[in-house]
């Protein structure tokens, strides 16, 4: 192939092979079990499993808002990592300017974390 993109994609051939192999394997196993297993439907078999006892209440329950805070803090530092990676691969190119900019960026983000910490929402009590 003359196109350079094709050479790059050729290195993803292994990924494609593994992905298709995974799909084939799962499909084959599901097909085999469908072929072999007996089918005796009972109402009890459709109850959600809860350690062997009959489940209490509904399957879905309302979660607490604290989970949202933790997930949001995770997203915040996820995005921070996204911006740190391009800087970290070429730190020497951006020098003091890049360092200051990155410190300002991290500092502003830390304000949010400090605020959440001082307000006590990080405490799981």
């Amino acid at each position: 192939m003359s196109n350079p993109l094709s050479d790059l994609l050729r290195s993803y051939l292994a990924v494609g092979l593994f992905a298709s192999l995974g799909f084939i394997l799962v499909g084959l196993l599901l097909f085999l079990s469908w072929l072999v297993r007996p089918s005796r439907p009972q109402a009890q078999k459709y109850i959600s499993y809860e350690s062997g006892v009959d489940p209490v209440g509904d399957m879905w329950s309302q979660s607490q808002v604290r989970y949202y805070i933790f997930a949001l803090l995770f997203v915040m530092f996820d995005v921070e990592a996204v911006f740190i990676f391009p800087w970290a691969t070429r730190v020497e190119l951006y020098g003091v300017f890049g360092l200051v900019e990155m410190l300002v960026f991290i500092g502003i983000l830390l304000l949010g974390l400090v605020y959440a910490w001082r307000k006590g929402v990080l405490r799981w009590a």
Partner: protein
Amino acid sequence: MRVEMFTFLLAGAICLGGALGVVLLKNPVHNALSLVATLFGVAVLFVNQGAYFLAAIQVIVYAGAIVILFLFVIMLLGVDRETDEGREPLVAQRPLAVATGLAILGLSLVALLSAGQRATGDKADLAPLNQPGPDINHLAEVLFTRYVYAFEITAVLLTVAVVGAVVLSKRTNEPLIDLDEFPEGTVVDVRRRADDAKAQDEVDADAEVVAVPDTEGDPQEGGDD
């Protein structure tokens, strides 16, 4: 068939299937999981274009974190409640959605058909990112030169989001409004004074009940048996 075209078609089919699932499925959790499929498809499209860093970010941030955030919101609102499909929160939102979708489709078609091969030519805003070499380095160059203010404002945006979420979700025992701050004579102040007087009366009444000497715990009680 060329590999790029095959990958593009496969990833595009996954994207469109996920998008249809987001719109058509009834269970909100299934909608969020369909969104994961769409985002993965977009990541494959990024790989197809040689943007490996963007592909990794797409999976880590969007499929990994943002959708989890969506799922937490869905669980917070409670998916067990029967949503009334017929009720529309916004007036005429369905016709508006159809009109907007058709308009975006038309604009995209016009841009594609009229621009020909140069839909993303060198004069586009993305030209600095289309140089040969790893996209992560080009991203950093643009980030620290042209978009440095936008980069810092992103941090402010995220911080504002966290502060807002903390303020909205914090459960306080104190009243949200300090009633003592209202000037004397206003309706709120008069009502507060009445409430205070009533509460004080109740406290006094309780104190009287407590103050009554109880006669039941007498030492004579155990002597008769």
